[in-house]
Structure formats: C-alpha cells, structure tokens
C-alpha cells in the first residue's frame, strides 16, 4: 500500500497538506519517525517559515540522514515552499546557512525594486513549465498560490522545471532524479494544485 509521509519538523502547514491528500484519498501520515518515513512510498517536506529554523529543526529531530537515504534510493520526494528551498546547498535568509544540498544552488531574496514590486510575493501567479514536466501534466490553468520572499536559484539549469515572473524571473519548480520542489503551495492552489499533487502521487 502506498503511503505518503509528510515530514513533521514543526514548520507549519502539515495540516493543510494532510487535508489535501485526504481529499485525494491518498493514505498519508504526518510523522518524524524514521521507520515510518522509510516505509512510505512518497515523502513530502512542507514548510512555512525561515530557512535557518527549518534546517535547525530537521537537525534537531534527526531527520537529515533519512531524507538523504530515501532520496538516494530514488523515493519520490516533494518539497513545498520552504521545503523546496531547504533542498538547496545554501540559504541566504537571516545570514548564510547550509541546506540539504540535494539540489545545488542558493536561496536568495527577490532582487527587485521593492518600492514598486512588493515583497513578499503573495498571491496567484502564472507558472510556465517545460513541456516534459511530470508535475504540470494536464494542469490547467497553471496558476498557483505563492507566499515567499526568497527563492531557489539552482546551479544547474537542467534542474529547473518551471518558472514564474515577479519583478524578475524565478524558479517555481525544480526536479532532479526523483526529487521535486515547488515554490508555490499546491495544497492551497485549488484544483490546479490538487492536480499537481496527483501527478506527484502517480510518479513512482
């Protein structure tokens, strides 16, 4: 039986992700138990919050080795918002911090004229994905809900699977092997978001 492990590391909106998966009738549990994570077929790292606190909590709960182990074994992994940013090697929010380094790159603040382009980027925005993208297959319209001030800039452009524009073009989704990340909130993006989650769940 497929089960989704939603990583509980004290960083926000696990509840929303769990509700969305329940609606999609996908068995899921919110957990920080290493064995439960190992047994799961898919892993979701949600998250609302600051980069440093996110990494500190992953470390505190001893979750980093199991995330490394499962991604190495190509278990489908989806990082959402902060969960995507933590995939990077370096985060620049509130100082320089080391990330999970699953997608080499840096998480930096929007470099825009903040008088005219209000940061954080909050709201619904258009996403353009590459044609072969797994997550965005049959998703219409590709408009998603974002709330963030920072975004991931991967070193390898091949890791970029979708972009969005807010004062500057930024990366809205990444994929490397079976590791996916989305900067927007699929669990809060109504039907389009639920479609992205369905695509992730169908990926094996």
């Amino acid at each position, binding site marked *: 039986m497929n089960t989704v492990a939603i990583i509980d590391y004290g960083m926000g909106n696990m509840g929303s992700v769990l509700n969305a998966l329940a609606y999609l009738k996908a068995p899921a549990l919110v957990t920080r138990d290493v064995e439960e994570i190992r047994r799961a077929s898919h892993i979701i790292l949600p998250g*609302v919050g600051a980069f440093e606190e996110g990494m500190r909590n992953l470390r505190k709960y001893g979750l980093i080795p199991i995330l490394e182990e499962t991604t190495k074994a190509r278990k489908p992994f989806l990082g959402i918002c902060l969960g995507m940013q933590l995939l990077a090697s370096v985060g620049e929010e509130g100082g320089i911090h080391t990330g999970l380094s699953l997608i080499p790159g840096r998480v930096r603040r929007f470099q825009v004229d903040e008088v005219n382009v209000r940061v954080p980027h909050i709201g619904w925005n258009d996403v353009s994905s590459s044609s072969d993208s797994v997550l965005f297959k049959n998703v219409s319209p590709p408009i998603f809900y974002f709330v963030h001030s920072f975004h991931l800039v991967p070193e390898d452009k091949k890791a970029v699977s979708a972009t969005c524009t807010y004062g500057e073009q930024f990366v809205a989704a990444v994929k490397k092997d079976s590791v996916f990340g989305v900067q927007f909130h699929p669990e809060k993006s109504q039907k389009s978001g639920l479609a992205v989650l369905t695509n992730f769940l169908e990926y094996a």
Partner: protein
Amino acid sequence: MLKTRVIPVLTIKDLRLVKSVQFTEHRNIGSFIAAARVFNARDVDEMVVLDLDGRKSGLKPELLREITRECFMPLTVGGGVTSVQDIQALLSLGADKVSINTEAVKNPNLIAEASRRFGSQCVVVSIDVKKTEGGYEVMITGGKEPTGLSPFLWAKEVKRLGAGEIFLTSIDHDGCMDGYDRELVQKVSTSVSLPVIACGGAGNALDCVRVVTEGGASAVSAASMFQYTEITPRAIKEQLAKAGIEVRL
C-alpha cells in the same frame, strides 16, 4: 503576472457567522462552515477568517479544523492571537497566514518574533482605522480602544518589525457597503512597500476597481457584499479584468 486577489472575509462570533456595521450591531447570519464551503466551491482566491471572540475567549481550534478539512485555498486566520504558540497552533491547523491586531500594538515584539520564527510571509498585521478630526487613528480591541497611532507610521513600523502583509480595515465603512476609504488605502499603500488588503465598505464591483486603481490595493476583501448581495467574487474579478487588472479567472 501576479493577480489581484478578491478575498471574502468571514467574521465569527459565538461560533456563528456575523455581519457588523462599524464594528457594532453584530448580527448572526448563519453557519460559517456553510459559507466557507460555498466560497471553496466558488474557487475563491483566498479567505480571511476572524474570530471576534478570540481576544476574550482564546483560540478555538475546532473552528479552523472544520474549515480547513474541505477548503484548499489560502487562509488567513485572526482573532485572539497573542503569542508565537498561538501562531504555531493556527499554522499547524491549516492556516497559511496569521493576522495579529491588538497584540501587535500592545506587544510589537510579537511581530518580530513571529516573522523570525515563521517567516514574514505568514505574518499579517491587521490595522483597524477610524477617521478622526485631524486624520486617521489606529484602533484596537475590536475598534473600541484608541491607540494614538497614525496608520501610516504604524504600517511602516510593522514592516520594519517583519510583517509581510497589511490587512487594512476602515471601521467607518465597515458593513456600510458605501465604498472603500480609498484615501486611507492609498496613503497606507504608498507609505509602505508591503501588500495591502483593503477592507471595509465594498458594495459593488466599481468600489473594488477603484480601490485597486486609485488606492493601490494588492487585494480587495469584503464581508457584507458577499453575504448580503448576489455579487460573487468571480463577478468582481470579471469587472476587475475588464478594467485591465490582472486576476485569476
């Protein structure tokens, strides 16, 4: 391109959906769950849920739990938030953003602490404003307590402390459906580079168009208009689109 949001507001008192006029005369208008369900089915951009008893009787997790179980849209929740523990509790129940109002004035450090811990994108500071002889004043405790603060300076201060968004309500226009206070919205949105959600006074689509084009609002919100008239969030968005404003249709 970023869309201008149209946001229904649910105000809740004694676990019932209520409608107010200038923050008084709260009238029970039904079940908030039913209302949340309708807005979810209508595919709204976002919803704001304010528990007016929150300050008095503390947070009510069951209220939010019922809404988040079936709503897959962004939710901002407020009412009675006084600590980072409260914020943590709301976020883990499915809120995406938490609105702080009275406590932000009484203990501004909460804004800083919350944005450090959860990121500024989930810290909304709610500012209730009353028109005075000399200008405008920030009010707290459900509009009852004057603070002596100017909304323009207070908006700057909350941005400095780490707020990510401002939910700006004109008490004078609340529930009156006579149009937003565009001057207030315009002055706040030019004094601070944060997204400003305009609230209080929406009665028709033109009000919404004007508060965006003239007031510079990043989002428009309304309670009475969506509860008491046939106007839907989608109808408002169609009119915004006609006026050349980007929306999600």
